[in-house]
C-alpha cells in the first residue's frame, strides 16, 4: 500500500497558490477577450456583408476544428518564425486561448440571438424601434437568457483548457504542479492536489450555473 505523504508537497503550497492565481488570470483574461472577439464574430456573421460573414466563418472554423494544443504550440513556435518577431509564451498563450474560446462564444451568441422568435423583432420594429434599439432592448435581453447555460459551460471548459499552457511553460497550476513534482518526487500527491484545486475552483461555478438554469426554467 502506497504511503500518502502530503508534507513535502504542502511545503510548496505557495507554488500551487501562484499557479491557481495564474490559471484564474488566464481564464478571466481569455474569457474577457473571448467575449469581445466572439461578439464581433457573431455580428459579423449576422451582417449583410458577405466578405465579413466569410472572414468570421473562416476564423471560427479554423479555431473550432483544430486542437487547442496544436494552436498553442503553433502560436508560440511557428508564428514567430513566420512573422520574424518574438512572441512571449504568456502573449502566445493568452492570445490563443482568447481566439479559441471566442470562436465557440461566437456560435453560442449567434445561436442565442437566432433562437429569439422573429415575431419579437417585428413587434419591436412595429412600434418604430430602429434595428439597433430592437437588438438592445428586445433581442439581446432574451438572447442572453438563451445563451447563458452554454456560455457558462464553455467558460468552465476554458478554465480547464488553460492547463494546456503547460506545454509552453506558462506558470499556471499544471505547470507549477509539475515543478513541485520535480522537486519532491511525489507525483501522486502533487497531481492529486492539482486535481483537487481545479475541482475546488470549478465545482462552485457549475453549481451556480445549475442553480440559475433551474431558476430560469421556472420563469418560462
Amino acid at each position: 500500500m502506497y504511503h500518502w505523504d502530503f508534507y513535502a508537497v504542502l511545503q510548496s503550497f505557495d507554488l500551487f497558490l501562484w499557479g491557481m492565481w495564474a490559471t484564474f488570470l488566464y481564464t478571466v483574461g481569455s474569457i474577457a477577450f473571448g467575449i469581445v472577439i466572439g461578439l464581433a464574430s457573431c455580428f459579423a456573421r449576422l451582417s449583410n456583408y458577405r466578405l465579413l460573414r466569410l472572414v468570421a466563418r473562416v476564423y471560427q472554423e479554423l479555431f473550432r476544428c483544430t486542437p487547442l494544443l496544436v494552436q498553442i504550440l503553433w502560436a508560440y513556435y511557428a508564428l514567430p518564425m513566420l512573422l520574424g518577431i518574438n512572441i512571449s509564451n504568456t502573449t502566445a498563450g493568452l492570445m490563443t486561448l482568447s481566439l479559441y474560446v471566442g470562436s465557440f462564444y461566437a456560435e453560442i451568441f449567434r445561436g442565442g440571438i437566432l433562437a429569439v422568435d422573429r415575431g419579437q423583432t417585428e413587434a419591436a420594429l412595429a412600434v418604430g424601434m430602429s434595428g439597433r434599439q430592437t437588438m438592445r432592448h428586445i433581442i439581446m435581453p432574451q438572447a442572453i437568457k438563451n445563451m447563458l447555460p452554454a456560455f457558462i459551460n464553455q467558460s468552465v471548459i476554458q478554465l480547464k483548457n488553460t492547463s494546456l499552457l503547460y506545454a509552453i511553460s506558462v506558470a499556471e497550476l499544471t505547470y507549477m504542479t509539475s515543478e513541485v513534482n520535480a522537486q519532491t518526487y511525489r507525483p501522486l500527491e502533487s497531481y492529486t492536489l492539482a486535481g483537487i484545486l481545479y475541482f475546488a475552483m470549478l465545482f462552485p461555478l457549475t453549481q451556480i450555473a445549475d442553480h440559475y438554469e433551474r431558476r430560469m426554467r421556472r420563469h418560462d
Partner: protein
Amino acid sequence: MTKPEAIAENSVISISGLTKTFGALTVLHGIDLTLTRGDVLGVIGPSGSGKSTLIRCLNMMEAPSGGTFHFRGKEVLPRFKGDGKKIGMGDLRRHVGMVFQHFNLFPHLSVLDNVTKGPRVVLDKSRAEAEAHAMDLLSQVGLAEKANFFPSQLSGGQKQRVAIARALAMDPDVLLLDEITSALDPELVGEVLTVVRRLANAGMTMILVTHEMGFAADVANRVIFMEAGRIAEEGSPEEILRNPKSERLKAFLSRFHG
C-alpha cells in the same frame, strides 16, 4: 385612382397600384386603397389571397415592390429615416400600430413594460409619463390589475389585449389588426372584440383582417374582399357581406354563414 396631389386632407393612408412580389411570386397585383380618418376597413378573403401581405406593406414590415404609398399626404420611403418631404419607415411605424395574430408580447418584460417600452425608447418619454399613459390604456382594456404580471402568466385573450394597449401607447393614427382573434380559444374571442369595438366607436382608424364576418359587418364601415392578390369586391358591409355580387364572394361567404 388617387393622384398624390389629389390626396384628401383627411386621408391617412393612400396607396395606388401597390404590388408585392416574393421572388417570382406576385402576391399583390396593384392595390388601390385610401383610408380616411375614422375609417374602419374590414379585409376578408381566402387564405393566401394577400391580406396579411397587404397590411404588412402598410407599416413597411414588407417593402412594396411597386406602386405609390402615401401616409398623411407624404410619400413613404423604404428606409428608416425620412427627409422633410418624405416620411421614413421609423416615423411611419410610430404612427401606424400593428397587432399580431400571435400577440408577440415581449416575454422578458412585465405587462406594464411591454406597453411603455415603445414610448420610452422611440418617443423618449419619461418613465413616469409613459407609465401613467400605460396604466390608463391598461384599464381601458380591463387589465390594470395585471400590470406587474409577465406575459406567460396571462391567457391568450389577456395577451392580445395587452398587445392592443402596447400599440395604442404610441398614439397611432391607424391600427392594423391581422386576424387578432384567430389564435384564441373561442371563449376568449369576445373580450378582444369588445375592445376593438370600443376603439371603433371612439373613432379609431383601423384596418382589420378577419374571419369573423359578423364582427366585420358590425364595426367596419367598409369591407374589401381580396382574392389572388387583388381587391375583387369593395363596398359597405351591407353590400359585401349581405348582398355579394360575384359568385366567388358568395361561395366564400357561404363557408361562414356570417
